[in-house]
Every structure is written in C-alpha cells, then in structure tokens.
C-alpha cells in the first residue's frame, strides 16, 4: 500500500514539475519529491535491513528536501526577477513529452524488469522517468535555477535507480554524487545571483554570446 502510494506520488510530482509556471512552485515540488523519495528509501532499507541505505535516505530528506530548496528559495528572494519560469516549449507540449517519457520508462522496465523483486520493480519506472524528465527540464528551461532543479531531479532518479537495481551503489559513490549535486546547486545559485547583477536576468540566452 505504502509502496504504491509513494510510487504514484513520485510520478505525479515529476509530471507536475513540467506543468507549473512559477519557480517557487517548482522548488516546493522538488522538496516534496525528495521527501517521498526519502520515505521510499527508508522503507526499502527497513525491508532489506541495510543500514547505509537508511543513512542515504535520511540524508536525502534533510538535504534535498530541506536544505537545497532553502538555498534556492533564498536565492530567488535576493534576485529581483519575475518569478516565472521561461521555457522553450509550452506547458501542454512539455506535459505530453514528459508523459511519453514516463511511458518509455515503463516500457524499459517491462523489458528488463523481470530480474527484480516486486518491490524494487515498483520503483524502476519512476527512476527512469525521473532521470529523463530531469534532463528534459534542463533542456527546456531558460533560467539557470531551473537547471539546478532539473539536476537534483536527475540525481533523485539515479538514486532510486540504484536502489531498485542494485540495492544502492557503494556508499562512497553515493556520497560523492550527493556532494556533486549539492555543490552544483550551490554554484548555480551563486551564478544566478551574479548573472542577475550583470545582465539583470538569469536567462541562459546570454551565454550564447560566448561561443567561439
């Protein structure tokens, strides 16, 4: 029951990320998603009895659900820009493509999932969808902060994928990836702030001028 619930929430939150218009909403969705990801991790850890997974899940809840959204939110407050997320594709088109990616995730799972136990299979399509949609978010949004959010979602997907397929990656690797994402988001915040100061905008369109 719990498994189905968390799985559903994860998928819906991912799709919702593509639908919302304001950045602050996206941050809230991210927070929610990470929280339920942590719950899923904890439940898996309780099932298999592995200690490091529970540590990772706890870390996920603390950092990705609380700290990172916090940083992003404070950056948003400092920046004096419109709160709207500028995209290349419209919200309906994005939603359609994201739904397609979710279906794609299910297809992939269906072909490969016969090797896994039931509880793990439940999360595999979520994982693949989160990975692809996180990347998709990075592709379609113009503002730098959204790219940070997309990155975190990608990492969520990766974490879930590792949980499903291999009951977690080696601890060191997990911690390393975690650190990478955390620092990346930090950097994106700082950069957004600087970009805003310089260009009065955090749209990555300006970066086009840097090509050789």
């Amino acid at each position: 029951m719990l498994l189905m619930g968390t799985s559903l929430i994860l998928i819906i939150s991912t799709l919702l990320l593509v639908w919302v218009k304001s950045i602050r909403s996206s941050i809230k969705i991210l927070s929610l998603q990470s929280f339920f990801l942590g719950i899923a991790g904890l439940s898996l850890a309780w099932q298999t009895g592995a200690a490091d997974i529970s540590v990772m899940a706890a870390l996920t809840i603390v950092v990705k659900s609380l700290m990172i959204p916090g940083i992003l939110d404070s950056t948003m407050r400092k920046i004096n820009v419109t709160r709207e997320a500028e995209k290349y594709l419209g919200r309906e088109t994005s939603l359609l493509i994201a739904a397609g990616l979710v279906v794609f995730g299910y297809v992939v799972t269906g072909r490969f999932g016969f090797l896994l136990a039931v509880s793990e299979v439940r999360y595999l399509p979520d994982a693949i969808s989160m990975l692809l949609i996180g990347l998709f978010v990075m592709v379609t949004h113009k503002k730098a902060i959204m790219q940070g959010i997309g990155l975190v979602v990608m990492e969520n997907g990766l974490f879930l994928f590792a949980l499903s397929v291999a009951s977690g990656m080696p601890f060191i690797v997990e911690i390393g990836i975690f650190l990478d994402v955390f620092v990346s988001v930090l950097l994106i915040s700082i950069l957004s702030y600087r970009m805003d100061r310089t260009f009065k905008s955090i749209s990555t369109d300006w970066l086009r001028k840097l090509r050789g």
Partner: protein
Amino acid sequence: MEQSWLLFILAGALGLFAAGALAALLFAGNAFISRQFAYGCSLLANAALIAGGILGLSGETLTATLFRGIFAFTDILLRINALSAFFLLVIGVVGLITTIYAIGYVSEYGRRKSIPLLHAGLPVFLLAMAGVVTAGNIFTFLVFWEIMSVVSYFLVVYEHERSEAQKAGMIYVVMTHLGTLFLTIAFFILQHYSGSFEFQQMGQTPLPKPAQSLVFIFALLGFGTKAGLVPLHVWLPRAHPSAPSHISAFMSGVMIKTAVYGFLLVTMQLLQPGPLWWGIATVIIGANTALFGVLHALGEIDQKRMLAYSSIENMGLIFMGIGTALIFLAGRQPLPASLALIAVLYHVANHALFKSLLFMGTGAILMVSHTKNMNLLGGLIRRMPWTALFMLVGSLAIAAMPPMNGFVSEWLLFQSLFTLGFSSHSIGMYLFGVLMIAVLALVGALVAFLFIRFFSMTFLALPRSDKAEQAVEAPLSMRIGMGLLTGGCIVLGILPFVLSGSVQSAAEALTGTSSALSYAITAGTISSGSSKAAVGVAGLLILSGGFVAWALTRAIGRKTVITRGETWACGGTLLPPMTYTASGFSKPIRVTFHLLLKPSRRLVADKDPQTPYFVRGYSYSSRIPLLVEDLLYKPVMSILVAGAQLFRRIQNGIVQSYLLYLLATLVIILVWAIGRQP
C-alpha cells in the same frame, strides 16, 4: 668482431649527437660553450657516421636492439646493411662539412637569445636522419622520422618574426604529417600480412597482389611528400628558403634523401617485385616533377627558392631512375635494374654534395649582402673571389658538365634509359624509353641554362644595387666548408671509381646481384673499359686541350699587348640598370613554355598628368602563379572548410541544446538496448 665495432660506432654517434644537443641546451647561458659543445660533438659524431658507413658497406645485414620498450614492438631496433651504410656515409660527409660551415654561419644570429636552440637543433636533426636510415622496425623508423620532421619544423621557423617563415612552417608541418600518415598506413599493411614489426621479417613474406600495390601507392605518397614530388611538393619552395642557410643545406642535401632511402627500402627490400605499372608510374611522376621543377626554377629570382625548385627537379630525376629499376625488376632483369640503381645512388651522393655547396654559397651571399634577389646582385666575383670559384664548380657540377661529378650520374641515368629502350620488346616501351631520354636531355639542358643564369647574374657583370656593392668575402670556416665540398665534386667527377665500390654494394643489397657495371659493359651499351673511370681522362683531355690552346697563342703571331677599356654601351656610360637581369635572361623559356607556366605580367606606366606622351616611370611586375596550389590544393581545402562550417552549426552556444544532445543519446541508447533484448 667487425660487427660489434660497427654497432658500437653507430650507437656512439647517436649518443654523441644527443650529448651535444643536451649540452648546448644545458649551457644555454653561455653562448660560447653551448656552441662549442653542439658543434664539436656534431663533428665527432659525423666522423663516426662516416666510419660506420664505410664499415657497414661490407654487405651483411646486422641488427641490434638499442633500448627495450614497454611492448615488444616499441623496441628501438637498429639495422644496418649496405644501403643504410651508403646513406650513412652521405649523411656523415655532408654533415661533417656543413657543421664546419655552420660554425661560421651562425655568427649571423649571434645576438639572438634563442641561439642555443639553433645550436642544439643541428645535432638532433642529424641524429634523427641517421636513425631513420638505420631503423630496424616500424616503431624506430616512425619515431626518428617524426623527430626529423618536428625538429626541422622548428628550425624552419627559427626566424619566426618573418611571416613567410611562419607560413612556410605551417604548410611544411601539415604536409609532412600527411606524408607520415600515408607511411604509417603502408607500414601497418605490411605488418598485418607479415605478422612482424621488424623489417628483417617483413622482407621474407610475400603479400597478396592487391595489398602489395596498396603498400606501394601509400609508400609513394608518403615518401613522395617528403621528397617533394609533384603535386606534393608545395612545402619545399617555401620551407627550404625560410630556414637558416646551413639548415637549408641539410634539408635539401640530406633530408629529402632519407625519403629516397625509405622508398627504396619499402619497394625493394620489403616488397617482392611488383607489376610493370609501378615502374612506369614512378618514371612518369619523376619526369613530370623534374620538368616542373626546372621550369619553375627558371622563373624565380630568389636564389634559395630557385635552389629549392632545383632540388625538386633532382628528386624527379632520382625517381625516374628508381622507376626504371622497378620496370627492370618487374621484368625479372636484376642486372639492368642494378645499373639504374647505381645511377640513382650516385646521383643521391652527387646531389647531396653540390646542392649543399650551392646553399652554402647563397648563405654566404645572404650573410654579407642581406639579399637573395638575383636582380639586386651582380659583380660579386671581385668581392667574393673564393665563394665565386666554389659556386662556379657547384654550378658546373649540377649542370652535369664534364668533368664534374654531376656528369657521371647523368650519364649513368642516360645509359639506364638507353638500356630500357634497347632491351624492350614492345613498341610502347621502346618509345617510352626514347621519350624519357628526351625529357632527361631537356631537363639537363634547362638545368645548365638555369645555373649559367644563377652564376652569371649573381657574380658577373656589374653590381645592381648597393647591397651587392658592399659585399665582402665569407668567413674562413664557411670557405673551408665550401672548399671541401668543391673538392668532393671535382674528385668524384674525375675519379668516380672512388665511389663505385660502395654504390655497387648498396645496389646489390637491393637487387641481390653484383657486377652490374661489368654486365653493362659486356652487353655493349657502355664502351669497353670502365667508362666511368674514363670521364677522368676526359677531364684531363679538356685541360690539355686548354694547354694546347695556350701554346698555340704563344706560338703563332707576335707577343701582343692587352689593354683595358670600357665595355661599349652605345656611346654612353655603362650603368647597372643597362645590364641584363635574371628575369630577362630566362624570358625565352617562359615564353616558350607559357602553356605550362602561365606567366602573367603587368606593365604600368606612370604618366605625366599634363600630357600622356611623357612617361615619368614604368613599373613592371611579372609572376608565375602557383598552378598546383590553385588547381589542386585550394579546391580541396575549400571543400574541407565548407564541410567543417557545416559541422560548426552543432556548436551553437545554447547550453540547452547540448543537454538535448545528451537526452537524445540516452533515449536512443535505451531504445537500442530494448531492441536487442530477445
């Protein structure tokens, strides 16, 4: 025990070169010590090379591993046979003499800070060349070949503040790496079929016919680039003039010969005798190159560019000889092939001598008058008498005038082509031989024209500019260098049998037969008795004829008085602008061959604005366009650049698109993985 001596000497020579270069760099602060080390070690090492060359001519093949590499194929393996020994000898002799010359010449660059690099570059360059001709496996060969190319690049752009030197270096390094690419392909095809990286093993294994021809084509392209065969020659007229003169002497005199060595190695030692078209193609390419080289040389007024084109021409002649040998080998006639190879090897040695000599002379002229433009020189015979004498001998030698060494190799080439015509059974080959003789004769005559022009315009008549007027004689070490080479030219001309033993051994190493000369004699194509020895008699005859002439002038008539007078100049004073120029001297040739050269000229009259009948001055410029570059290289390059521009659109500067590439790749991989699952 000679074996170990030989390898010891060779290793010692290589080590000395390396030591000299390192020392030059270590003592970079003290210019004097750096110079002494570099050139001193070079002198000793060159002497060692000469000794090694002489020892190695005994005919057996020796191999030795110098360093063991990580993998088996990365050993540094040396291999010496008579052919390598011959080339070592050439490298050593020219190296020794040019080093002596260089000691005086580099004082021209004395004030530069980077001069230790120039000092160090020379031994490394020689080291690489010696390594190329003694390499025993693919790795060694390519390593030394690369070192040679890279070091020569740096030496060519040594005067980096001149933009044409930079451009020349760029074209040179691109072309030479293109050639190396072809070489590598050829070597790896050979390795694939013979299963070994070592040349010794490769020679034993025959390849299937298509693979053989592929190797041949790639070897021709690769070595042809380095040798300067048309149309791969475009770097030569730019690179050789831009380098410092002693380096130009090395590049023209020795470096392009390593390409000849490589080509002979691959086609005659590593491959089995191939089909007839190999030889015919090589001869045609060689003839084309020779004619192209000499015609363009006649259009040049820059001395060094002219000499570069002349090197192209001589390489053409050499490849004509190699092609003739290939034709004979294809017909299973090793003896005439050996004759052709003897001609080729003689010409390699001769050209090394006289081309280095000529570059040294132009270096001396450049040093004292700061110009290479023949239209600005003249009258130097009085100001630089020794250099003039040496240049005269060099010009006579390269024009193949008896009794100089050039005549010997030209004569041998003639005889090889004659044998080709004489021994052929089909009308096609017969006429081919005759036509090639005609081309050889034409090229020979044009070369004589070229060097008469060179010598006359530079040294005779009146100085055409202040630069020529202020010229002085070259420093002693340069004169010694030039004098030694001049002596070599004369000696090899009068006593060619000095070299015949070594040449015969080297040719034997390639075709497996000896006594080609006695064959030629008994076959009657050469007159009885060794006619090569008799060229010396011809030289003595000319001298005695001159003596007879002098005796006649004393005997007949009374004792006459010689007075000096002004040259008749239609009643006026003879001024430099009234004398003939280099451009004018070769004008008839440019006119006759205008279809091949397509010269263009502009004559602009600067008229008086008041009336068109009074002209204040004329400006005349004529140029021969670089046809090969315009017709072949430019289109290829523009296609490449257009293609690259197309690809550039991928890099559009939008971060998101790069991420899109990632996303797409991920999805595609997943789809593909799905498809593969049963």
